[in-house]
């Protein structure tokens, strides 16, 4: 879910080029297109990123808004705190998920952001896929707007492949959803249109997976956390449109150029890092700097997989439209049980030749965070992967303590570097 600020400085002009510029343009166009004043106005559906039903809704002519993405865009642009404080004055407690507060605060203040006005919903689609807070959040939206709410109940993944009863349950809910859409829009469902949209999705998914897998190269031509977050926008928000699919063509072209010309995220890739967890969007740049200072490049990350595990092979399949949508919604990263999550991470460590893991815990997100300490313990003691755990918030700048976080990162990489130096491997000196 990445919609970084257009105003943010590029880390290296040679590194982030055409794709980044194109991504900015797509973001701008998307928000401009949402403008409620625009005519003719299309109906608006609110949706969550994980396990979303964008293709179906798009095939009925809806505009799709993802409040999580709006919230994270606000955070990157340092606009989240005002919304959070407003939500707190409505009674949302300190410990409620920052996305929820940021969004409901924004909604209550009229939806005005510096990048456009967010329209009110005509339909609320809650894919309960991996986070219980989704259910609560959409209940609150439903109560505020009186818009109809469709709750798409997605069973939690406890086994590697979906069970037949899960798929049956999901497909029958999808048919019920389609009937609801037919009733709301007065249009009848067009299976061929859905298949066409799914084919576009599939094309984007191919491209996105190719990009993510470039992190396997040594040195990695991509930054799999900080850069990926920029490029998550099309796969999550525009999936099903030709623009999204074309976008990844440009991205991968650029990555190939990098490989050819030796343009890298950092002059020297000293540490290949796996990053787990939601980013601290409020201090995203600073956080990136803390990595760069030590020559740490993230070659793989779990967070870009919240919209689906495409890098591990999943594709929407136009020949099995509803079944593949059902499988997709089961496959969001946070909808995987801890044993499955651990397996994914173990695979990543191996496939991407990871030196160390940095876990960023989110104070107000239990779905991602509860159990990350156990993950740390497992990585260190059972997998022998040096792992750092740090904690702040994705939305609330009050919980990002720069000095503390920097101190921990310095100590972590300092000792990794020292171990390398004394073990006779690549010598490095503190900056």
């Amino acid at each position, binding site marked *: 879910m990445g919609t970084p600020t257009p105003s943010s400085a590029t880390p290296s002009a040679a590194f982030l080029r055409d794709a980044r510029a194109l991504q900015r343009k797509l973001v701008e166009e998307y928000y401009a297109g949402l403008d409620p004043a625009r005519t003719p106005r299309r109906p608006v559906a609110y949706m969550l990123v994980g396990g979303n039903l964008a293709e179906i809704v798009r095939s009925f002519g809806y505009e799709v808004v993802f409040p999580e993405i709006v919230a994270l865009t606000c955070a990157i642009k340092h606009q989240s705190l005002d919304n959070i*404080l407003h939500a*707190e*004055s409505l*009674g949302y407690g*300190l410990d409620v998920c920052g996305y929820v507060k940021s969004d409901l605060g924004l909604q209550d203040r009229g939806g005005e952001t510096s990048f456009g006005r967010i329209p009110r919903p005509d339909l609320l689609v809650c894919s309960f896929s991996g986070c219980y807070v989704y259910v609560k959040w959409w209940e609150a939206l439903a109560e505020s707007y009186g818009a109809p709410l469709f709750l798409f109940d997605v069973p939690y993944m406890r086994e590697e492949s979906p069970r037949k009863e899960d798929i049956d349950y999901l497909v029958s809910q999808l048919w019920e959803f389609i009937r609801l859409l037919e009733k709301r829009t007065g249009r009848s469902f067009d299976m061929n249109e859905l298949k066409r949209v799914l084919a576009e999705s599939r094309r984007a998914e191919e491209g996105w997976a190719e990009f993510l897998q470039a992190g396997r190269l040594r040195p990695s031509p991509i930054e799999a956390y900080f850069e990926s977050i920029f490029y998550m926008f099309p796969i999550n928000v525009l999936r099903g449109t030709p623009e999204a699919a074309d976008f990844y063509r440009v991205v991968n072209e650029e990555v190939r150029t990098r490989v050819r010309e030796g343009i890298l995220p950092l002059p020297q890739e000293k540490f290949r890092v796996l990053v787990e967890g939601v980013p601290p969007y409020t201090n995203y740049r600073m956080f990136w700097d803390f990595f760069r200072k030590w020559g740490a490049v993230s070659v793989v990350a779990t967070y870009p997989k919240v919209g689906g595990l495409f890098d591990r092979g999943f594709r929407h399949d136009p020949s099995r439209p509803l079944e593949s949508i059902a499988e997709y919604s089961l496959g969001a990263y946070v909808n995987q049980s801890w044993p499955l999550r651990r397996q994914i991470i173990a695979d990543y460590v191996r496939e991407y030749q990871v030196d160390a893991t940095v876990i960023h815990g989110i104070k107000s997100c239990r779905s991602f965070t509860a159990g990350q300490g156990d993950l740390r313990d497992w990585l260190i003691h059972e997998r022998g992967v040096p792992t750092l755990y740090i904690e702040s918030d994705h939305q609330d*700048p*009050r*919980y990002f*303590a720069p*000095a503390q976080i920097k101190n921990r990162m310095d100590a972590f990489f300092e000792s990794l570097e020292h171990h390398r130096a004394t073990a006779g491997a690549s010598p490095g000196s503190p900056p």
Partner: protein
Amino acid sequence: MITAGLDLGAGTVKGALLEDGERILALASRPSRGVPVTSARAVLDELEEGANIAPGEVDYLCTTGFGRYAIPERHLQVSDFTSSARGARFLFPRTRLVVDIGSQATRTMAVSETGKVLKFKMNEKCAAGAGRFVERCSKYLQVPLDEMGPRALESAHPKLISSVCAVLAETEIINNVAEGVPLSDILMGVFLSLAQRAHSLMRYVGIQPEVTLVGGLVRSNGMVKALRDTIGMEVNISADSYYAAALGAAILGHARLRKLRTAPGPSGG
């Protein structure tokens, strides 16, 4: 009828002596760390002396504040919210919202025309938003408490504190000093941070004029300005606002006593 109100706060004991629930005979206060009983007795003595009455002439004693159960000879005890609200209304009859910033807690309450508490809220989680924090800043920054307000008023670009934790906020302040932020801006930042926390509590109960500030921080003109600027509204203060809770207790004591005297019967409470 002479009634006394004692506010046994976490930092200070305040007392008020009232005649017929209307006329202030005396006000007094004393610091209290830990056990407030001795300070409370001393405040009572001081009140009696100040009003020039003999001990025993006090008809009714009502306590409030954190140590309200500590005085065995009390006739009644009421909560801080209830007493501050009454006191604020006594001082400013058109009060609809009371903000009480004391040493350990910031409290807000919406009150009715009669001074009854309608809705209330206090800071529960983090203590960075109350007077003790200001005291610590005064110690750290080596600016006496009394001077913090006047110095803060000189600020042109207040430096806000982002940390929610009282302890981490201190470090943040020290960093600001080290980075050369002018002292007045830091001081105003401290008051503004308090004001912002109070503001969010106030919004929780609903903001309606008139707003009356009571409690220890009313003594600091920096705090008053910060609150006014933050909520964008006039805030009532007076020299006696510091004693609002004690006054409120004395008033409630008077009301109770009158009820008892006019309609003698079994007493509960």
